[in-house]
């Protein structure tokens, strides 16, 4: 799988120092993304999905410690801050959940769009401006030339996210990491932004890593899916396999929680997952999901085997769900 991979992550761990001890936010995860494909990392709050993206981008908070066996982008070691500093914003771009906090309120849209391009490409102001206008038009912003002189607060949430996408694409990246890009938006705008991302990805052949909590988004946009729980990838595979034939009790539990026309009856009970997520502070052993799992058994407290069937991977003591 890692043959043509553009991003290869092996045994990534992120530890956070907290008042109560070391919090293992990401516990040994491995995945890779190939050009032109979309990997969705899905999980609930606190599962470590955002930490994963920040770890790849080398944007972790100061209290965090990152270790990885491999962290490579097209064979280059992006574990080195120097290499990452060169690639970030150029070959690797990122889109955040809340564009208002990611955009600098004191600079115009134009300044912010052109800055990274001029920095990485040593381009003239005019070239950068032309590129910016072309991209704003591509992401569906009308009268792009006028928008360049506007400040972020003058735009609606949907427009801001489009600007963020245009900014990410300025240098023509080959990898785009999007962390909950549509969570702050209305459903109608969400669909538009996701469509735009999918179109651009196909058109430009970039690899997209999309981090979200929304299984609906995952199902519609992902080629590959990694389900995270308590800092680990508990199930990974093609989108069709994950949704059509989930092998991990957590994945199945999550899917059953969502009301789905045709599958769930209005007014009937929805599936639930009992209890809450365990604390990630301190050492841990065995399956992190066992307190909430309907199929838990004593052996779950032992080390959990990683099972595979083709590209489909899951971590469970059970070979198949009953």
């Amino acid at each position, binding site marked *: 799988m890692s043959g043509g991979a553009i991003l290869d992550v092996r045994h990534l761990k992120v530890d956070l120092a907290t*008042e*109560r001890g070391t919090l293992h936010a990401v516990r040994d995860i491995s995945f890779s993304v190939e050009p032109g494909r979309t990997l969705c990392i899905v999980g609930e709050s606190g599962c470590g999905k955002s930490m994963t993206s920040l770890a790849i981008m080398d944007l972790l908070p100061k209290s965090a410690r990152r270790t990885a066996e491999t962290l490579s982008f097209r064979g280059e070691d992006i574990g080195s801050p120097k290499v990452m500093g060169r690639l970030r914003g150029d070959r690797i771009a990122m889109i955040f959940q809340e564009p208002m906090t990611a955009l600098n309120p004191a600079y115009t849209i134009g300044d912010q769009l052109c800055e990274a391009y001029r920095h990485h490409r040593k381009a003239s102001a005019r070239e950068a401006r032309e590129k910016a206008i072309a991209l704003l038009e591509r992401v569906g912003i009308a009268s792009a030339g006028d928008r360049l002189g506007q400040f972020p607060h003058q735009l609606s949430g949907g427009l801001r996210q489009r600007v963020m996408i245009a900014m990410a694409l300025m240098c023509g990246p080959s990898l785009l990491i999007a962390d909950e890009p549509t969570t702050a938006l209305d459903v109608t705008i969400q669909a538009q932004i996701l469509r735009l991302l999918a179109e651009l990805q196909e058109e430009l052949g970039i690899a997209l890593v999309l981090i979200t909590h929304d299984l609906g988004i995952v199902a519609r946009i992902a080629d590959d899916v990694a389900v995270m729980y308590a800092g680990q990838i508990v199930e990974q595979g093609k989108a069709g396999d994950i949704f059509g034939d989930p092998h991990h009790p957590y994945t199945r539990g999550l899917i059953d929680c969502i009301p789905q026309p045709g599958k769930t009856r209005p007014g009937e009970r929805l599936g639930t997952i009992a209890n809450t997520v365990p604390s990630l*502070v*301190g050492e841990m052993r*065995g399956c992190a999901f*066992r*307190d909430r799992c309907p199929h*838990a058994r*004593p052996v779950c*407290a032992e080390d959990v085997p990683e099972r595979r069937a083709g590209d489909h991977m899951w971590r469970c003591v059970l070979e198949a769900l009953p």
Partner: protein
Amino acid sequence: MTESTAFAAVAMPSAGARLRRRVFGHKSLVFGASLLAVIVLVALLAPLIAPYDPYAQNLLARTQPPVWYEAGTWAHPLGTDNLGRDYLSRMIYGARISLVIGFSVMVISGLIGTTMGLLAGYFGGTVDLVVTFLVTTRLAMPVILVALAIVAILGGSLLVVVLVLGFLKWDRFAVVMRSATQQVRSQDYVAAAQAAGASTPRILFGEVLPNVFAQLVVVATLEAASAILLEAALSFLGLGVQPPLPSWGLMISEAKAYMFFSFWLIAIPGTALALLILAINLAGDGLRDIVAPEGRE
């Protein structure tokens, strides 16, 4: 808890223990609060620990230097002033004046400012406009000049100084409480209390005030420090506390004439004043660090 928990139970300190650790781990807070506690204790116990009557003059023993000078004796550890009064005793009683001023001004201005800020932040609209206008008006008046003018008309005394400063220094209380209240006002638990049928006073005192109390404490400490400094300034100018009361500011003023011959007369109350202000500000800053939302879990 199920029997087989997924993760080894971590010894989780209780909330109280965590708070204690945070307070005692904050070095400047511990330092400021301890220093302040010492000064307060000295002021409270003044009659017991002061070696002499602070008003008793002894013209035979004028401007005796403190012990660390060659001519100093342990009879007057901090020496005597120009009227032969024991400087240590005057310093000890002076702490009372500073603390009384600081505390009373804080209470008076705090009551006025907090009331205004709470009402403005909670009701908004016209009330807010009026309060904002009053704050702006008040900010347009320089405290020290207005205080000087009033004291010059009424004559200086401890009471006058307390009242004048109390009625002049509520602005920061009003501003901080207004914005803190506005922030709490927008929380859903206030709306929930309204929907439960709670009366406005009940919401103000039960829901809003406890949640802005932390900010209130911080402003209060800073205002107390600033009131003490203002009193010293007024007394230095001869318009504050009147002689023979041993106010530190007044002591500095009285020592002006002797500063080239008996430097300690200015240095000792000056240092004490600086230490007190430092103690209060460190404690206030420390409190803010402890109670600030981002400091919480």
